């Protein structure tokens, strides 16, 4: 259940593929990872949560932090998520209206920038 993080480049975006449970124990690693991607000069980030079966409020906090960080650098954050247990958390908190969930990294990148 260890968190596995793998980052790929796609059409000028960094796609961070997350596998495992994102909880209070593991979320700091995701935060550090995204921070270093943005600090490395890449403010356009997709977080791909397809390999995530569980995400808690700490994980949600990391996603909110990543959104603020990418936007403050002139970039954006997009999410890939079709797993119901994780989707549900975004819906319950209404965060899916601020950060839409996409079915694939390609779809996430192709999406219009939010107004």
């Amino acid at each position, binding site marked *: 259940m260890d968190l596995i993080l793998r980052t790929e480049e796609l059409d000028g975006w960094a796609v961070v593929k997350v596998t495992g449970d994102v909880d*209070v124990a593991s979320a700091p690693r995701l935060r550090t990872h995204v921070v270093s991607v943005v600090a490395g000069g890449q403010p356009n980030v997709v977080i791909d949560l397809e390999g995530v079966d*569980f995400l808690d*409020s700490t994980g949600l906090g*990391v996603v909110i932090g990543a959104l603020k960080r990418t936007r403050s650098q002139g970039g954006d954050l997009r999410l890939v998520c079709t797993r119901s247990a994780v989707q549900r958390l975004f819906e319950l908190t*209404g965060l899916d209206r601020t950060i839409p969930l996409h079915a694939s990294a390609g779809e996430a990148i192709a999406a219009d920038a939010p107004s």
Partner: protein
Amino acid sequence: MTDLVDLEIPPRSDHLALVRLVVTAAAAVHGRLTDRRIDDLRLAVSEACANAVDAVRAADGDGQILVRIELGDSELAVTVTDRAGGFDLAAVTEIPGATEPGRLHHERGLGIPLMRSLVDDVVFNSTGDGTAVRLAVRT
């Protein structure tokens, strides 16, 4: 008759995955909730345990955290108990609702509101000794 499953873990966040497994497995034995309700309960319990771990560590305690699962006919209830000295629930600031623009400023403080939206009943019982949170899902 209500079956009980009790689990005690050290106050460390790397044990939360174990608690989640036990909740899921106990719910499977219980056999009266849909997968979605089980996912919801699992998340609520994980949040409550994360708070308990935080509280024990902040209090410099090393007491165990007790997770009691009641497999009842009419509900599945999980109580998370710590001995971290308790807190004043009324004094905890509620974060802005989902539609409010203030939401984005909050990377923390989501736990308790989440628990309330995930399960049917949330009851906090906090004394100077510690806190018990009971999270129940009706069948």
